């Protein structure tokens, strides 16, 4: 135990030393005005949630450090910290902290078709995890029920990229990865492999894609999913949808979401209306013990949510939503009210506008 803690201490010191070296090399070597600089970005949020009558207050912060190295490399590290205040058994509010590393990866832009990524990364499955999960982006703060069906994080290597598929009318994007098993309580990942492909049609602004994940441990379940997104050119509307099915115990489900920005109404330009419907179908062969272990994924459920977002500025947003969840024997009202702030801090000379 003592040896392990000494090793961990040394590894942390070495890691910090390397980061400082990288930062200084990057900043020193980038005298040219066009060279990108390291930045610290991310978001903070404060939300009050009422889930079936139980109140929760949750401030959170998710910093993201981006360090470009030369023309081809990018080091990305994102963490999260939140503290949740809820009523304990004695009737007083108690705070519990949670923290972790969302991802810590290094990317190498090998060519215009391939980017090689290594480290801990968000599993490329569907569109929610990689693109919509940050709280300043997601239109509704409540995550879809199927979000936790595939593994959310991976540790290993990934190939990904996007390029025009023969013409400018369609872009093809892909991601293929392999992940190792990691049992650390903060950084747990499954041994798995999989990927995602997608086609984006810039003209009608339609995206369709499919994802696959094969877990290579325990009962070796696989998950398959499809996603769709559409932004009509003439209307400030976004439609998104995802469907996932797992061969193991986690069942299947889908969600459909629409976001309408009232940009054509003079006094309501900053307002956004959101609606989402979703259904989850649990595996019918689950035993009582499995239902208990799976929690929210153990029972069939339907949920409808409606919300509004108001943009004070592009980086400050207030949100409110109401949802009704229908689960056998436990229907519940879900209220969320709060604010998010996205920050961007340069860690070097910014340079002048072009």
């Amino acid at each position, binding site marked *: 135990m003592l040896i392990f803690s000494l090793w961990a201490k040394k590894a942390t010191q070495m890691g910090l030393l390397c980061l400082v070296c990288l930062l200084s090399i990057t900043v020193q070597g980038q005298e040219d005005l066009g060279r990108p600089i390291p930045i610290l970005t991310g978001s903070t949020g404060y939300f009050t949630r009422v889930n079936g009558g139980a109140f929760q207050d949750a401030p959170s912060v998710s910093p993201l450090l981006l360090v470009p190295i030369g023309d081809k490399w990018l080091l990305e590290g994102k963490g999260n910290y939140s503290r949740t205040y809820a009523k304990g058994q004695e009737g007083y509010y108690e705070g519990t902290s949670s923290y972790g590393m969302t991802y810590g990866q290094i990317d190498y832009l090998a060519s215009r078709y391939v980017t090689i990524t290594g480290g801990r990364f968000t599993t490329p499955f569907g569109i929610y995890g990689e693109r919509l999960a940050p709280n300043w982006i997601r239109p509704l703060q409540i995550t879809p029920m199927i979000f936790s069906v595939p593994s959310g994080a991976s540790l290993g290597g990934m190939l*990904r990229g996007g390029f025009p*598929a023969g013409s400018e009318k369609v872009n093809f994007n892909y991601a293929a990865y392999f992940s190792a098993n990691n049992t650390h309580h903060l950084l747990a990942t499954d041994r798995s492999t999989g990927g995602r492909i997608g086609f984006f049609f810039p003209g009608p602004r339609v995206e369709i894609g499919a994802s696959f994940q094969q877990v290579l441990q325990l009962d070796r379940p696989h998950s398959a999913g499809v996603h769709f997104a559409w932004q009509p050119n003439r209307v400030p509307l976004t439609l998104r949808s995802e469907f996932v099915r797992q061969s193991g115990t986690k069942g299947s489900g889908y969600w459909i979401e629409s976001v309408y920005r009232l940009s054509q109404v003079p006094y309501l330009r900053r307002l956004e209306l959101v609606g989402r419907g979703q259904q989850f179908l649990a595996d019918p062969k689950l035993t009582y013990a499995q239902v208990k272990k799976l929690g929210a994924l153990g029972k069939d459920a339907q949920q409808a949510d409606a919300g509004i977002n108001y943009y004070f500025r592009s980086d400050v947003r207030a949100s409110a939503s109401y949802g009704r969840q229908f689960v056998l024997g436990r229907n519940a009202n879900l209220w969320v009210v709060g604010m998010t702030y996205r920050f961007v801090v340069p860690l070097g000379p910014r340079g002048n506008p072009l």
Partner: protein
Amino acid sequence: MKIRIAIFLVLALVLLLTLAAAAKTGDDGKDKDKDTSGARTGVSQDDTARLQGEQRFRSNCARCHAAPPKFAPRMMGTIVRHMRVRATLTDEDARLILRYMSH
């Protein structure tokens, strides 16, 4: 099982390389066309690039989030590189968006 995964990966790689080659051929042809059409209409290359950048921004970035303010070019370079990886932007989209957002 391992053999099946290996076959799947090899097939995926072959498919990717084929698509990449096809895309490259298509792009080369289009670049030549663009140059001639630009000269014919007399529109400056800067304006064309800016318009294209705005279009690419609306198509790609606005699909997920509200438009951010324009940052200094050196910050924008990092942000666009991050988004190129995260949102699997094409090389050309990333270049045009960077140009548009840096003005």
